[in-house]
């Protein structure tokens, strides 16, 4: 495993220690995550790649505090998340994590501003502060003029920007994106990716899942999964070389 830039002396942001997620399907068990250990530091841009069904979403849900592992330990910002109850997990998601979904997942009955305000609403911010922070986040993704629009009045790219604004608004330590460009055309995909890259350069830690090698190439670090296990962990260049070698 390679050394990466800014980890010296720092405690890792994410420390996954021998994580198992096992689903019991009748008599057979599915090991969606089969002993995963992974350490991610502040400021990294990590792409998780692998075939469909290899366990990417499962580990992402655990990293995102949407789920807890069957076995193993998950330390996020020094806190053991792996044994937390649902309301504690909700607080972690609210304060520490920003999600970007493939399907954008904006609420259809709320306008863009209200959608972006949601994490702040559950974070207990007052109305004025919510509006101000949400408008700032929308300005950052360049669609502040669309704040009044409802999701169905926005293009796919604009909706994804909206969901990025929503992920950013609470100033989370970690941005998680599960196939963020999966539903976008190649031009919009590139724009969104550039934006994520820029966010990373500004110091945000980003973990994204992707099928797309060109997307993975944008990341600093690539983690490849297969059958619930990590089978490769290295720089984007190393990954490219290995793939080329077959």
């Amino acid at each position, binding site marked *: 495993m390679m050394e990466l830039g800014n980890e010296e002396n720092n405690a890792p942001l994410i420390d996954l220690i021998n994580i198992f997620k096992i689903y019991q399907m009748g008599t057979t068990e599915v090991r969606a995550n089969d002993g995963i250990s992974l350490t991610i530091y502040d400021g990294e841009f990590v792409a998780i790649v692998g075939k469909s069904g290899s366990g990417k979403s499962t580990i992402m*849900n655990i990293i*995102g505090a*949407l*789920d807890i592992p069957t076995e193993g330990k998950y330390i996020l910002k020094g806190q053991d998340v792996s044994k937390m109850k*649902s*309301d504690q997990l*909700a*607080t972690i*998601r*609210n*304060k520490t994590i920003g*999600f970007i*979904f493939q399907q954008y*997942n904006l*609420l259809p*009955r*709320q306008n863009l501003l209200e959608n972006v305000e*949601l*994490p702040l*609403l*559950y*974070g*207990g911010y007052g109305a004025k502060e919510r509006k101000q922070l949400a408008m700032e986040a929308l300005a950052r993704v360049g669609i502040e003029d669309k704040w009044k629009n409802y999701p169905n009045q926005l293009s796919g790219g604009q909706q994804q920007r909206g969901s990025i604004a*929503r992920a950013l608004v609470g100033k989370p330590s970690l941005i998680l994106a599960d196939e963020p460009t999966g539903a976008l055309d190649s031009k919009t995909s590139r724009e969104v990716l550039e934006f994520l890259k820029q966010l990373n350069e500004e110091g945000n830690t980003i973990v994204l899942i992707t099928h797309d090698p060109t997307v993975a190439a944008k990341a600093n670090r690539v983690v490849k999964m297969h059958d619930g296990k990590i089978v490769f962990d290295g720089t984007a260049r190393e990954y490219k070389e290995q793939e080329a070698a077959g």
Partner: protein
Amino acid sequence: MSILQAFKLAGKSIVGSKMRSFLTMLGMIIGVASVITLIGLMEGVTNYVISTFSDMGTNMISVTVTNTDTRKVDVDAVYEFTEENSDIFLGVTPKVSSRYTVKNGTESLTTSVTGVGEDYLELNSLELSAGRFIQYADIKNRYNGAVIGSYIVEELFDGNAALGDTFKINGQVYTIIGIQKEEADSEANSTDDVVYIPYSNATRLAGSNDIGSYSFAAIDSETVEAGEEVLDNYLYGIMKNEDLYTISSMTQLLETVNTMTGMLSAILGGIAGISLLVAGIGIMNIMLVSVVERTKEIGIRKSLGAKKRDIMWQFVIEAAAISTIGGVIGIIIGYIATRTLGSAFGIEAAPTLNSILLAFGVSAGIGIGFGYMPASKAASLNPIDALRTE
């Protein structure tokens, strides 16, 4: 998330699907309106009945006695007894009532002829429009004088009865000595359909010297109970058998009326209450559907940090708001209906404050109660499963 936020969300959701919200409310509207209307109308009827009875004198005590050969209640003794208890009784009058045919020339009709004492008029707060009432001397002398009501004037004398005119009661000639003031539009069987004669004459008409009925006037309605007690002691002392006399008063009657109308109110209210329950189940049903439809929304909210209680509040308050808005509309409709129906029936009916508060509380309570189950279902959804649904 604050409660205010939850209310805003609920408002948005209700406005967002107006038709569904309205249909959900409809049950509550009908339930609350019917509870309010029925209770209001029953209250109006009760008040009407009570005021009608009150006009008949709430300080009066009626006594009936079944005189036997060996045990009799004597009129003079009753007067004496009343005199002795003047701290309780204003007075007493015998009442010997029977229906007889009365005739004036070719006109004839059957009416209630009541033999009374000289205090009858005053004790019953009646007034005369002409002449005088029966006096002690009339009773002593068994004078054939009669005081007639306005119905008799209309029907037997074509509206022109003068003092001194004569007519026949059961074949005996009587002279009009007084005319009672019109009380009840001169209708048949009303307090205007009466003939008063000296009680001494009435007993003779009835073919017996015994008097079986007395009206005692207590000082006021408060002393009625004490009056009934001394009367009971007195009559038991004479008759030695409780079955041979009865003592009754308007207070008892009023109580009976109150209990009966109260019972009726409870039954009607209960039936209307069932419709509230049905409305609550309707709300629960819609909320359950709504939770299923909004599973994705719940998943998104949870992924962004909504806690169980945030989701809980959102759905409970939405249910409570639908229910309460329905309740308020129901109260308004109930108010209008009570007024309209009340005046159509000719009674003074208004929804009681209690029934309004009750209806409001019940509708909010039903919303919370029946919203709780769907809300806790929503709150306990697993965020990943919820996010995965479409």
